[in-house]
């Protein structure tokens, strides 16, 4: 397996959507290729960081204001 072939299957590997056979091939490639191992680990970490950190938080005050406005309009039947 080449690095390009590995990269084409990177998402499927991360998302657990590869067959056992393909997974074995990918793991074999990883044992011999430090670059692809780094790419896999840091891509996984990228997803994990974005998933676990709230970068656009909705502050309480604003939340209540918008909420009240939505409810007011809905009561009037929009």
């Amino acid at each position, binding site marked *: 397996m080449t690095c390009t072939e590995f*990269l084409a299957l*990177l*998402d499927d590997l*991360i998302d657990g959507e590869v067959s056992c056979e393909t997974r074995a091939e990918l793991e074999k490639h990883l044992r011999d290729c430090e*670059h692809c191992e*780094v*790419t896999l*680990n*840091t*891509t996984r*970490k*990228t*997803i994990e*960081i*974005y*998933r676990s*950190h*709230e*970068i*656009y938080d*909705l502050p309480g005050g*604003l*939340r209540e204001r*918008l*909420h009240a*406005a*939505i*409810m007011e*309009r*809905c*009561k009037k039947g*929009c």
Partner: protein
Amino acid sequence: MSAIQPNADQLEPHPDLALVDKARQGDVQAFDVLVRKYERQIFRIAQHITQNREDAEDVMQDAFLKAYEKLSQFQGNSKFYTWLVRIAVNESLMRLRKRRTGKMVSIDEEIETEEGSVPRDLADWAPDPEQNYGQTELAEILRKTIQGLPQGFRIVFALRDVEGFSTEETAETLGLSIPAVKSRLLRARLQLRERLSRYFRQKKGGEK
């Protein structure tokens, strides 16, 4: 009998369906529960697309109002949440169009780039690299980094990886084919990885 049927492949109806049913009969409190359940996600998605706080606030409000208004059109073929997100995505794109008067804005914009298709920065990251930054600084890095992505990649990454949509749900919500979602997701992930490497790469001996 409920007016909305659960998906055939679901054993139990999604709990949102009962709330939607009540809201359709004029129960504003039931709709209130749905608003509180999804407001953060809708605000986040609107921010990812518009990249503007004021616009995101307007989009959030408009999306919920439109959803309430169109509840009778919700067929229950998809989840209420994905239906709501579709409304929010369309509202966000409309908001962008207004800002860039006359210029067409779509999720196909700015994706003709090969950047990030092949990883270049192959340095490994420090263990737990986010520990090197304070929460505010880290959030700023993450915002700046994702805002630099082409829009068509950013939306797919936000839905698929941040909001946890499946590939199929992302495709349905954005009106894209499954291969298009997959291709954009791979490139989005690789570009973000590449860009974050500037901050998170392991420092070599003596490097500050």
